């Protein structure tokens, strides 16, 4: 039963919203409601590449995501639910000498932040993954503490732990409006009832733009569809997680042995649809069989699309908005799966104390107004900032 009043209402029952709810409850914040329009984890939280890594190439990204990686190490024990963190390492693959040079530069940056990444030459990479097409390998960087976890398990783990601490989670409940009076949040209208509250967190993932629109805030982001494919189970041949700079794709082998991969298809326009497109399917098949010629005879078994609300610099927006008191953003995530434990903990700190922790401070929404996007050169998803010049 939804109560008529909560101290905080979190919109979105994905990994972000649930991680925040759990951390607030752990610190005895008060009454917490999580509103989810479908079943919990139904959005991008259960439709992502499950990748865990922190080896990026900028101060802001490395600081934040390395904090998250530390939390991942103990997450299963903390939530009393095994999230199946598989420590298989995370390899960024370079296929050309130019990409290899980029890897070399990135490793230097990463080392300066104390990350233990390793630069691998062609022979090292082929020794690690013999199934790779040698023509597509010139080297790479390996983060050995990276890996993947079961995305569904993480959602269930956070939801279970949050519930035990008294958080009320309402699946199949849709937010229809947010009431603002004199610049301050007053209540949240849902498909079931109205909840009065003074704090609302927008953790609505691919629908964050719609939720922000309810209070007249326009986010500097656009909704993109990311598609992924899964093959029939194969015996282990791809030990680490793999991201290919050349083909803008990322892939791993699941605990069942399925090859799971996704790629950026440049010609795909922004979309909110969860349907699969033929052009992305062909593109992924071509890229993956180019990387792994042996996959040509592996059968495509499932495919799906998920949506992300992507900002011009691909970094999330976390924190308050100027005009509306009590409306907090936790959206614009593309790497939201790996980032959730840190975002949940740090944003909870901010909400409890009013002080913004330094790791999430750079991800404020004002950076776009000021024209100071965060530049990270290691991202597999192509940055739109340079090509489109602040299209949002």
């Amino acid at each position, binding site marked *: 039963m939804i109560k008529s009043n909560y101290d905080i209402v979190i919109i979105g029952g994905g990994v972000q919203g649930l991680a925040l709810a759990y951390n607030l409850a752990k610190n005895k914040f008060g009454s917490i409601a999580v509103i989810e329009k479908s*079943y919990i984890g139904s959005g991008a939280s259960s439709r992502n590449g499950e990748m865990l890594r922190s080896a990026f190439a900028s101060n802001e990204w490395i600081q934040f995501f390395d904090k998250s990686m530390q939390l991942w190490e103990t997450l299963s024990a903390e939530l009393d639910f095994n999230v199946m963190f598989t420590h298989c390492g995370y390899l960024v693959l370079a296929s050309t000498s130019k990409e290899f040079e980029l890897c070399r530069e990135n490793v230097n940056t990463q080392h300066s932040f104390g990350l233990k990444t390793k630069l691998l030459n062609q022979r090292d990479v082929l020794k690690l993954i013999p199934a790779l097409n040698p023509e597509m390998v010139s080297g790479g960087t390996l983060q050995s503490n990276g890996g993947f976890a079961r995305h*569904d398990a993480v959602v269930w783990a956070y939801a279970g732990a949050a519930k035990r601490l008294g958080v009320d989670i309402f699946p199949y409940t849709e937010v229809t409006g947010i009431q603002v009076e004199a610049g301050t949040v007053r209540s949240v209208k849902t498909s079931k009832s109205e909840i009065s509250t003074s704090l609302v967190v927008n953790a609505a993932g691919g629908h964050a733009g719609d939720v922000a629109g309810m209070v007249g805030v326009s986010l500097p982001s656009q909704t993109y569809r990311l598609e992924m494919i899964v093959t029939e189970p194969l015996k282990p041949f791809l030990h680490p997680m793999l991201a290919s700079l050349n083909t803008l794709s990322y892939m791993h082998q699941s605990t069942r042995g399925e090859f799971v991969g996704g790629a950026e298809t440049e010609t795909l326009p922004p979309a909110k649809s969860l349907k699969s497109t033929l052009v992305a399917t*062909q593109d992924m*098949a071509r890229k993956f069989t180019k990387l792994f010629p042996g996959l040509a005879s592996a*059968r495509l078994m499932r495919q799906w699309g998920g949506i992300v609300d992507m900002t011009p610099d691909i970094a999330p927006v976390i924190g308050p908005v100027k005009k509306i008191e009590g409306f907090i953003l936790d959206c614009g995530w593309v790497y939201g799966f790996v980032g959730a434990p840190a975002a949940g903990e740090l944003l909870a700190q901010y909400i409890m104390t009013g002080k913004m922790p330094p790791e999430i401070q750079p991800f404020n929404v004002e950076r776009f107004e000021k024209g100071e996007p965060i530049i990270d050169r290691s991202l597999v998803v192509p940055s739109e900032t340079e090509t489109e010049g602040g299209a949002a």
Partner: protein
Amino acid sequence: MSKKIVCFCHDITETDLINTIEAGYDHIEMLKRFTGVFMGPCQGKMCMQNVLKIFARETGQPIESLRVPTLRPPAEPIPLGSLATETLRGDDDKE
């Protein structure tokens, strides 16, 4: 009692499904993700009817009210190589 296999691909028994539903995974999408039914090489062709029947019975919902998991391509497992076409859809329009 010998096993009653519902999902042949992942060896999920009727008892497994009942236990999972009782543990709170009572949305068909969550049941699928927890146990792996519909997700094996048969893509649910062998188990869909039986899983829905058991799910309806255990949750007390009438079959008519059930939502079938969204069906997406491919309808049959297709070798990746046969999808790796020389050109991509839309390439010809560009020229």
